[in-house]
């Protein structure tokens, strides 16, 4: 049996298939590998407690910054507590907070829990747009029934 077809169109199809297949396999393989290893799960403090997140596992922690919990240390470190009304977690962050970071506002911190249960953040995100809070935080609060709306938008800004 001849493996290489004689018809021109069949040959061309086979060539194209031979070119596409390895790329597709590579892309699919990389994607699966990437999705298994490098996505980070989002937790609110209560969910993180319930899920028993292991120290050192990269996750995102979201919630509201507790009023009065922000401490700015002279060495540049900042600590604050993030809460979801059920539980709260201490976040330790070395760096400049986003311009829209405020007490009482929703934020998302990326990082790991250390052995003592303190969240060591590598990045803290607050939305640029002060009207909304991060979607995950809003959803988590809604799921818990702690949602009190986006805040009243002024009359002239109603869609």
């Amino acid at each position, binding site marked *: 049996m001849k493996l290489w077809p004689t018809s021109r169109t069949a040959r061309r199809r086979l060539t194209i298939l031979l070119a596409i297949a390895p*790329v597709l396999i590579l892309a699919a393989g990389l994607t699966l590998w990437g999705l298994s290893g490098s996505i980070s799960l989002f937790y609110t403090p209560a969910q993180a407690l319930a899920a028993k997140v292991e120290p050192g596992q990269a996750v995102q922690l979201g919630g509201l910054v507790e009023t009065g919990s922000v401490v700015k240390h002279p060495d540049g470190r900042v600590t604050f507590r993030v809460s979801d009304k059920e539980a709260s977690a201490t976040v330790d962050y070395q760096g400049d907070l986003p311009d829209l970071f405020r007490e009482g506002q929703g934020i998302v911190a990326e990082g790991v829990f250390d052995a003592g249960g303190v969240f060591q953040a590598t990045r803290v995100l607050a939305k*640029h747009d002060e009207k909304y809070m991060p979607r995950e935080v809003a959803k988590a609060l809604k799921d818990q029934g702690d949602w009190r709306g986006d805040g009243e938008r*002024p009359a002239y800004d109603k869609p």
Partner: protein
Amino acid sequence: MITELGAFALALALALSIAQSALGLLGGRRPALAGAGEGAALATFLAVAAAFSALIVAFVTSDFSVANVAANSHTAKPLLYKVAGAWGSHEGSMLLWCLILTAYGAAVAVFGKGLPASLKSRVLGVQGLLGVLFLAYTTFASNPLARLIEPPIEGRSLNPLLQDPALAAHPPFLYLGYVGFSVVFSFAVAALIEGRVDAAWARWVRPWTLAAWSLLTVGITLGAFWAYYELGWGGWWFWDPVENASFMPWLIGAALLHSAIVTEKRGALSGWTVFLALAAFTFSMLGAFLVRSGVLTSVHAFAVDPTRGVLLLTIMAIASGAGFALFAWRAPALAPGGVFAPASRESLIVLNNILLTAATATVLLGTLFPLIREAIGGETVSVGPPFFNLTFVPLMALALMILPLGPLTAWKRGDLRRGADQLKVAAIVAVLAGATAYVMVSPRKAMASAGLALGFWLIGGALTEAAVRVKAFRAPWPEVRRRLTGLPRGTWGMTLAHAGLGVFTLGACFETAWKVEAAEALAVGGQLRLGGYELSLDEVGTVDGPNYLAERGVIRVTRSGKAVCTALPERRFFPAGRQSTSEVALCNRGLDQIYIVLGERRAAADGGPAWLVRGYFNPWVQLIFLGPLLMALGGLLSLSDRRLRLAAGNRP
């Protein structure tokens, strides 16, 4: 009064674009109607331009009885940002989208003299249909010219992060790119209606693709540059959903640019080219939906409105659904086109297209994965840079590796060994450069060094290709000179774009791998070490801006005692929106930049005031922005090639 005229012009534009689509589509068979379709396309554009001017006037005169102005402007804002405020909101940006959409329609009517009458008429008809969808959305669901019953005395001002020159220009360029693909989409649908996709069609599509892709490149670069210096994080690409949304049409556009060449020169891949033409604008619309609906959490999405996301999704479903349904119906009838050997330029371009589309698919999956996961009831997840580094980067690296071989391989049946032979010098230079970087630059990074080698490989490949074309080093000087001046501009455009990609790769790899970061809370007189540089905070003063108050640090940068520059980073507070932003100070050092952010004031250990000063040393960072500009320049240079001028395009 002007606002009402503008609102009327917008409604008129909707009516005119309905006429344009009807006349254009019918005009495909009845030439008598085709002229009227062209007239309607011009009139639609003028009407939208009138509406847009009315919005600009409302912004410049701070007419707070217009809801959109009240929400996004402020009397104290500088004029540039009053004008830019017109597209800083959801409603205004959709009007800008419509303006550009109809401008492209008018451009086809004016510049498409060489097109066959029936094709031109149908293109205008399809463009008119797209206009109907978006104008109806703007008029009924997101009218920027709506009035308020009780106008406020002062507006709420534009988000201060958007008050920046690069970001004032970013949306127009981005939309010129995004919406430019609408013309390509219309050409594809018109060709499917006619049932004919040939070399001439590909030649007419190419200039529009080139224009859209080049402008999109500029738009994305401006956005990346803005993120780089306005956010104060020292990064320029975060694989954020909003960034990915603009990047996917760019990748598909790049694939389309190349496959259209094959269709033009060899008549092959016609079905695939049409498919990409439909996909490019689909990704543009997907981008508009992702950015505007806020369905994905992004660090820099502005003017989002979830309630209207559904409408945008519907528009996308209608337009692309119809386009792809037509494709499924008509594509099997398209002529198969020329054959080519496995070793030929066509094959290499096919490989390029496969890699680019696979890369786009991974970006798409990574961007939408949180939504998919949530829809099937899983936990909330976020897909970050590690995923994209793992999937996108290897696929693109493969594409970059084969890139220089393409232009050196002949059409139909080429000789890969000959191309490889010609690229020997480029390969040696690349490997040497990579090895040097691995040995010399500390800390040692193998992947980044390989990336640098790849960048040199691309630049070397582009230069080699140009040298081969002009027969440099092989022919006597007069002939080389004749060839230098005689080569078509399209060829130089390609060389420039490919070299630009190499320049970008160099910058991206070097900056990402070897940037140095340092941060410390400094009192006045304090010092911070950043690599080989010393940053000393000499004083902090206050500055009164037009609509902000700022603290400005005077930071002296020295290197082993010698003065390098004085940086003046600011921390601005905008009373109108009660927001503060940081204004980064940049010191250029050749290709490198020293990037300094003045953080917020805090108490030092001794109780006195201190400021968190953050410094980055970003080596070769300028190449990251220079590279894409070279690519865009290459695209525009190709566009000016005589072969692609539409008037000269009426050859068979």
